[in-house]
């Protein structure tokens, strides 16, 4: 059994912190108070439509570096109009699901599905500290951009010069660390 030892978690977005622990052979992430279902997606849910959200947990050797391990999953969330509760299922061949959840519980359930195998971390977390980057992206097939003139703005220039990927504009992330895991008891 692994036990978590948390050292100085630093969230880079205010009022949002990440913690990690290990359950069995998996590293689990907790993001209490962190909400990714808000604004328009919630309006769509309350209109009875489902919303897809892609969540990813990346384990980094240091802030901003390439991930040593990552897990990425897509969830379909819907809102029961009569029971006024949320339901979630993973979008994959063998979906997992949960229902009758409050909004915060639905979000927590999604985050809970992002378990990273500890063996994929190598020496990270034991001999070396690790950082966690948590990303989410609302997937909206209906979302289209107006091609009219939009490419030739100052923003487009900044995007081009900064080599920012197009999809990044809809991706939100928080990063925290360093974390250390104790040696096996």
């Amino acid at each position: 059994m692994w036990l978590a030892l948390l050292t100085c978690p630093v969230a880079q977005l205010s009022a949002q912190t990440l913690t990690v622990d290990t359950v069995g052979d998996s590293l689990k992430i907790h993001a209490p108070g962190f909400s990714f279902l808000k604004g328009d997606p919630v309006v769509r849910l309350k209109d009875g439509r489902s919303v897809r959200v892609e969540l990813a947990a990346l384990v980094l050797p240091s802030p901003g570096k390439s991930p040593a391990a990552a897990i990425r999953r897509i969830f379909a969330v819907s809102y029961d109009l009569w029971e006024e509760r949320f339901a979630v299922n993973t979008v994959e061949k063998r979906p997992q699901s949960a229902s009758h959840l409050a909004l915060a519980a639905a979000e927590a359930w999604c985050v809970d599905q992002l378990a990273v195998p500890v063996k994929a971390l190598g020496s990270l977390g034991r001999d070396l500290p690790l950082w966690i980057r948590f990303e989410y992206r609302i997937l909206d097939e209906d979302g289209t951009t107006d091609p009219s003139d939009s490419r030739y703005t100052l923003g487009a220039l900044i995007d081009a010069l900064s080599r920012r990927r197009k999809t990044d504009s809809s991706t939100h992330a928080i990063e925290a660390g360093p974390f250390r895991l104790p040696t096996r008891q």
Partner: protein
Amino acid sequence: MGALLAFSEGMRTLGLLLTLLAATPQAATDQKPAVPEGTVITSAQVTGFDIDRLSPGLREAIRNLAGTPLKKEQLDELAARIEAERPRYVAAVRTVMEPGGEARVFFVVGRQEDSTRDENVNDRYIVEQADLTGVPDSDLTQALRDDLKGLVGKRLDSGEADRFRERLERELPRYEISRRIQRGSEVGRIKLLYEARKKEPPPWLRFEPLHSNTVYHSDQGWGNIWDFNIGDRTIRFTPIFAIANAEDSVEEYSGVGLRFETRKLGTRRLGASFEWSWFDQDWRSQTLAALPLKPEVPLPYDSRTTITPLLKFAFTPDVSIAAGVSISELDALAPVTDSQMANAAVASVDFDRQWKATSDITHRAVASFAVRAGSRSLESDLAYTRYLGQGTYRFDFGRHHVQATGMAGGITGHPPLFERFALGDSLTLRGWDKYEISPAGGDRMFYSSVEYRYTGVSLFLDIGSVWDANTERQVRVSTGFGFHAGPAFLVVGFPLNTDNLTAVLALGLRIPGVGPRW
């Protein structure tokens, strides 16, 4: 109605069949018609899905199968790429042997109906009412009404409800359709509501193209002009900043400007623009040395302030005209000399059309003819008439691009220096230096260019001449190559019909405007 339901059921069955095909542990390639490996493929098509919704690279890869030997693994990879790009669809490969011993390849694509689709918890409720609002009854076909009613009395099928919304958008292209569900009159029942909102029709008039660039020219040095749009689809403010810009004429100017444009004045056919600019001039020594030899050319000036109000009218989405005045005050270089006014009536007719021949081939043709007439009746100190016609045709085929440009112009009377034609910069007659071939500009000009570009590498051939009516015309030719990566470019041009074969380098950043300039 029954037939439609049967069709719908059939489509679902097809979806399930395709899902099974995709889920089979073996490959997705259909083995029934035994088309052997290595058979030459005559054509490759995507069926059941609009190929334009795939990425250009994938479309090209599919089209490039034609003429190549069939490789099952390659076809499976392409089917997997289709599924990766469109995760809600499954793709299967079908190969058909032709009588001539060649093969045709079909990628059969269908929407997934398996467990990976979104589960909507409301799918267990019965639809008691289905309505469409925001569309006059007269716009609805009987079939649409019938199929809307057909959604009632069954459990909600979110996929079917979404497909019906997509169908509404196809059959009612002037509307945006959204859908939502509400609680029904009793527990377990829901109302399915489609709401239509009229789309704003696309504007017919175009904004002035932006020309932001920072350019280094090996003969002319650095120059910058930056204009940024601020606004929306209808109204735009464009601040303009110039530092030592010498791309447009024989002037090298620095200063600021502001342009306001609207593409809709009550109707999308009518628009207006108003531009103010103040530019300070730095004349090149070559220009100042050439002017005494051309006494008919008005004197250089220290700064230029210009106001240009224009009205624009679109006859069609492709053809528009603009008319107005350009009022310029030219502050004299020598303090003892009074400033001069260069006020002109301006008018132009513009054509701009882009069309797709196939999903991979795009054409664009742009042409304009403009007249500027400086007149004493407009309190102008300089009387002149300037004509300029130009046209560009661009052909895009995947990564291949060809652009042909032609322009010609003439001026009569005594135009100010900023109206005189100049060629030989980073855009025109590349390889020549305008301050060498026509340091004071000219009142006659023609220019043509053809450029081929493959991804970021270009080859070009430029031909043109600038001269004065009372002088001999010399046609100049140049060629060269360039590298382009996003807004960054590097172009090397070589003058051809000269004894002094030296390369001219231009590099920098250029944000293309909405016109077909590179």
